[in-house]
């Protein structure tokens, strides 16, 4: 099942459905990378609220996704990790280092806006 990607201004929002498979994650990565280019997105939000498990493969895909998106010039925020999921991930040592996370979609959008402001401020300074 393909993960739907919504466009909101210069942001892309992908909501991962419950029971997403490894293939779905790979497909999502491919789709997102393409879309970041076509719509000139500045930020990407991956919403994993529906997931009750995030295994090592999914974590790795998200991590590489964020790094690849970064190379294409956009920021990534993972939102909606459930407390139980977070606990399980930490137990497995999956801490998603270097990736921005936020409580939910709303927070994720705020985080992206903040990042953009910071970037503009930096550009302005230099």
């Amino acid at each position, binding site marked *: 099942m393909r993960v739907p990607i919504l466009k909101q201004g210069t942001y892309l929002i992908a909501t991962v459905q419950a029971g997403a498979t490894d293939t779905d994650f790979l497909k999502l990565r491919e789709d997102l990378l393409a879309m970041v280019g076509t719509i000139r997105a500045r930020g990407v939000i991956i919403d994993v609220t529906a997931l009750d498990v995030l295994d090592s493969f999914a974590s790795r895909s998200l991590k590489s996704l964020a790094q690849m998106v970064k190379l294409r010039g956009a920021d990534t925020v993972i939102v909606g990790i459930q*407390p139980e999921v977070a606990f399980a991930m930490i137990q497995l040592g999956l*801490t998603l280092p270097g990736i921005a996370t936020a409580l939910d979609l709303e*927070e994720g959008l705020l985080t992206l806006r903040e990042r953009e402001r910071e970037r503009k401020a930096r550009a302005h300074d230099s």
Partner: protein
Amino acid sequence: MAKRNGNAQGATGGDGLRQELVAHLREQRESLRQMWVQQMTAKGLLAGLSKQEIETESITIYDTCVGCLATGQYESAQVYATNMAERGVLRGMTSEQIIGGLLTLRDVYGRSLAERYQRDLARLSAAFDVYEPVANKILSIVALAFIEEREKVVREQQVAIRELSTPVLQVRDRLLILPIVGIIDSVRARQITEQLLRSIRSARAKVVVIDVTGVPNVDSRVAGHLVQTVDAARLLGARVIVSGIAPEIAQTLVTIGVDLTKMNTVGDLQGGLDEADRLLGYTVVKMDGAATASQG
């Protein structure tokens, strides 16, 4: 919770003998019970009990035990032992008092039995065959009832301590404080983390200050637990500030090579709150004359 023994003449077979023993014990009830109470008093096992209580309890115990011997049913002993365990533990009776008292009763019965059958050793041996299993069964029922009661109390206290020990407090909109007091083991670390994650979600917290001033020992294991808690909170989008790492602990951690550079650490809780305010964009401003106004 005691044993009885009896002495009878002319009984045949286990059941006949059992009835004889019961009859003997019922007949001798007053003298044996008095002897039992005297011996317990001599051993100091009745400290803290009133005369009235000793009378009532000793009669009940004696009769319950004879009842068990007569019927071969232990329900009444079980119920009484559980009931007594609850009262005994609550009033701080020691296991020595309980078990010692029963052992004394066992001796009293045994002595009486031996006297009764001293001329007929075969019969004495048969009487012990009937009496001993009952006595042992009652003793084990009582001992188990007391152990169970203790364990129940310990379990309840553990739960209570656990609940008391990890409050998550909201001090400002989107700012939580988690003061940790006491030793962190893996069970507690897990519980702290789970509770913190739930609170982060329900309070929609952006910043959490974990204060470890009350943690006596921070070693590599505890530090590992802390790092895990911090990482888990981060996955939910909250930033964590750790405050209250004492100078000695800081030295120890650096000496044993624990790497906490990934963590945002601050000297004390005040510093932690300041840092949190900064992250959230709050500034605390003192109002002129505020103190006098609130007093007046």
